[in-house]
């Protein structure tokens, strides 16, 4: 198994190298000039050229790539053009809201999706099943920015229960910061619950027809125990996969939701960096996101072996 995991780790490194290369060249393929944006409307073309030189943007792209890759191998993601700080610091500063938003969102999504999927499977074909399936379809179809604006209107402006936006005032306690995440986490949780609901339903339908479930019922176990222990326990592998992949996407930054709710997270950082063509930040953030994604995928693979002893590498 350890040899297999080592092979997976080596594969991850190759994936990361390919990602790094693609990120660099795709970023440079997009038109736009960070120096001109940085200096503003009144700057002359000569000023812009001077700033481009300062950041090495006047060099051939292949030279820029070689220099960047060299620094990357040393663990240096570079210096942000606009934020005037190391990219790794800029990402670290924004990691907390993104991480906790992802965590809360996945908790909300799982809390909605798994019970709804189980109920839908257990009462298959009944009104409750149709209601859950319809609800999941609706949740999957709603754009998160629209739901975000509706939630802001209703819960923040009309009822005044939550703040409209932001991550708490200066010096806010951890609890206050989490409180600021509740509305965006609810939005993301609802939107992402759809996929979890449908996977849970499908997976549960498969296992509920198995012989061991019938045997469990014949033994006289309570229905709750049959469904949760023998049904859900065996249906977990695909559910873990979809929860894990959803978590990976959210840790990468819920770009639209972070923008609507004014959250200072990684998604917001990437959007700003793209609009400003802050190349080092775009490259650095995407590499970190890709790294997290790869790691979560790897963790999911390891978890398979824990929840299902039949899975071996």
């Amino acid at each position, binding site marked *: 198994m350890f040899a297999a995991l080592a092979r997976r780790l080596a594969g991850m490194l190759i994936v990361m190298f390919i990602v790094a290369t693609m990120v660099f060249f795709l970023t440079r393929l*997009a*038109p*736009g*000039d*960070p120096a*001109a*944006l*940085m*200096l*503003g*409307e*009144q*700057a*002359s*073309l*000569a*000023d*812009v050229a001077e700033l481009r030189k300062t950041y090495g943007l006047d060099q051939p792209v292949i030279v820029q790539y070689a220099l960047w890759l060299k620094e990357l191998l040393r663990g240096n993601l570079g210096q942000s053009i*606009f*934020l*005037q*700080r190391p990219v790794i610091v*800029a990402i670290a*500063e*924004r990691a907390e809201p993104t991480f906790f938003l992802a965590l809360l969102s996945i908790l909300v999504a799982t809390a909605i999706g798994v019970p709804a999927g189980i109920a839908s499977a257990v009462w298959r074909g009944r009104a409750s099943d149709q209601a859950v399936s319809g609800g999941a379809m609706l949740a999957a179809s709603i754009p998160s920015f629209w739901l975000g*604006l509706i939630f*802001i*209107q209703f819960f*923040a*402006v009309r009822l*005044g*229960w*939550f*703040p*409209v*936006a*932001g991550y*708490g*005032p*200066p010096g*806010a306690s951890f609890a*206050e910061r989490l*409180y*600021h995440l*509740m509305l965006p986490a609810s939005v993301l949780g609802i939107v992402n619950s759809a996929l979890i609901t449908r996977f849970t339903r499908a997976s549960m339908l498969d296992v509920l027809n198995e012989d061991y479930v019938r045997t469990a019922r014949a033994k006289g176990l*309570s229905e*709750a*125990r049959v469904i949760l222990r023998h049904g859900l326990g065996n249906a977990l592998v695909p559910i873990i996969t979809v929860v894990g992949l959803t978590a990976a996407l959210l840790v990468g930054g819920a770009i639209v939701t972070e*923008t*609507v*709710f*004014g959250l*200072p997270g990684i998604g*917001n*950082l990437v*959007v*700003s960096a793209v*609009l*400003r*063509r802050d190349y080092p930040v775009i490259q650095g953030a995407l590499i970190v996101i890709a790294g997290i994604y790869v790691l979560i995928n790897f963790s999911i693979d390891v978890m398979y072996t824990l929840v299902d002893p039949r899975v071996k590498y």
Partner: protein
Amino acid sequence: MTKSRHPQFLQLGLSRREVGGLALGAATIAAFIGSKGASAQAANSLNLAMIGEPQTLDPMASTADLPSLIMMHVYESLYTFDQKLNARPMLAVEMPKVSADGLTYDIDIRKGVKLHSGRDLDVEDVIASLKRWIEMTPRGKSVGAALVSIDAKGTHGLTIKLKSPVPALVTHMALPSGYAAIMAKESIATPLVNYIGTGPYRFKERKPDQFVILTRFDGYSARSEAPDGYAGKREAKVAELRFIPVPNANTRVEGAIAGQYHFADQLPVEAFRRVTDSGSAKPILMMPYGFPYLVTNTKQGLFADKKIRQAFQLALNEGEMLGAAFGDEKFYRATPAHFPQSSPFHSMAGEKVYNKADAAGAKKLLAEAKYDGTPVRILNSKQYEFHHAMALVMAENLKAAGFKTQLDVVDWATLVQRRADPALYEVYITHSSFYPEPMLSPPQLGAGAPGWWDSPAKNAAISAFNAESDPVKRGALWAKVQEVVYDEVPYIRVGEFAALCAGSMRLTGYVPMPMPAFWNVSLG
């Protein structure tokens, strides 16, 4: 061992511990909801929702508005503007004494002005700051081209000597954009790390994408004159200013209505009714705030021909373009004048060709120019929706006059890059804040800006204007420049537009200015 179960939750199979945990979680949420985020608002601070994160906090490192908007509370300049945009002294004792030939400026600096470090401001700080401004900023560089020397005259006076007149020198130093901020000489560095100025607020903290906090400077040395625009007495009535980046315009609107923000900058004009009807926030209009303009490529391609540019100008219906961009007439004004009636630079030169939508006249000019049907490439960005709305109307105006058109819609970063290449467009759309001095904007009046306008008529008119120091004579000379602009069409000033902001009903003392300022503002 059998778990003890709460009777009501028996059917769900939850234990007492699980029920207790749920109850605790619910109570925590209820407590937060009950507080309604009360702690999010300190009693004596202003939450100010800005359009984004400032590029930098060094006001000389960028000509973008946001860094200066924030840092003009920290750094003051020698001169500033009153509400009618006349230059007035700030750190200078009075307006400079200018020699008859316009080549020597004697400036006295106020005594007893405290820097945020506690030390008194002196002429060395001022000279070091002005030198940095001349080295770093586009406006400073334009002054530097005519500069002979800046010398101290005692501890609180200086003399600026020029080799050729720079009539806009005081205005250049007064402008709060890429501005001549006066800072403690020991803090000067690139990049700037310590922000030590003389303003009513001092820098406290910046958390990127979260806030920039300024706090009241208790040692502030205010002027004695009554407040007037940016000029006169400044007083930090609120202890703390929090500049919060909120890039989403709808979120700024809702945040202002919900009371989370005391001020929300640059809202879409569609939000006017919603803010007005909310009862919890009030709309604030600044008119004129800025002007959209269309820059023509005079260097290469179709628009290198002046007659075709004139046809382009004659074909346009600027009123319709502004209507499409801003909706209600309270948000825009179609006028050929580049400056308001109160300005010495007010002139109606160009009214014969402005806002005519004269398709027949344009066709005639096109025939004379032997227009071959090459499409007019209109470079524009949807990132500013009003730019794109104007582009759509413009394209229809041009088609009616016999032009072929091509809308090149790109993001702003791409537009900024492409406009530097004369092979890529005939016209691009941009906008500028309104400035009281002609030579400050648009940059096409200078040399080397995109569009590359350069002609004997331009050089003669601009040289005469720049050589004159007398404000009355400069007014007449500007009218000549405006005439040349309408004749050679290096750019078309579409009209004027307003900025819509929202303020809390409790906000008092706020005076709308092109860049919002929050000294003398309090919460009622």
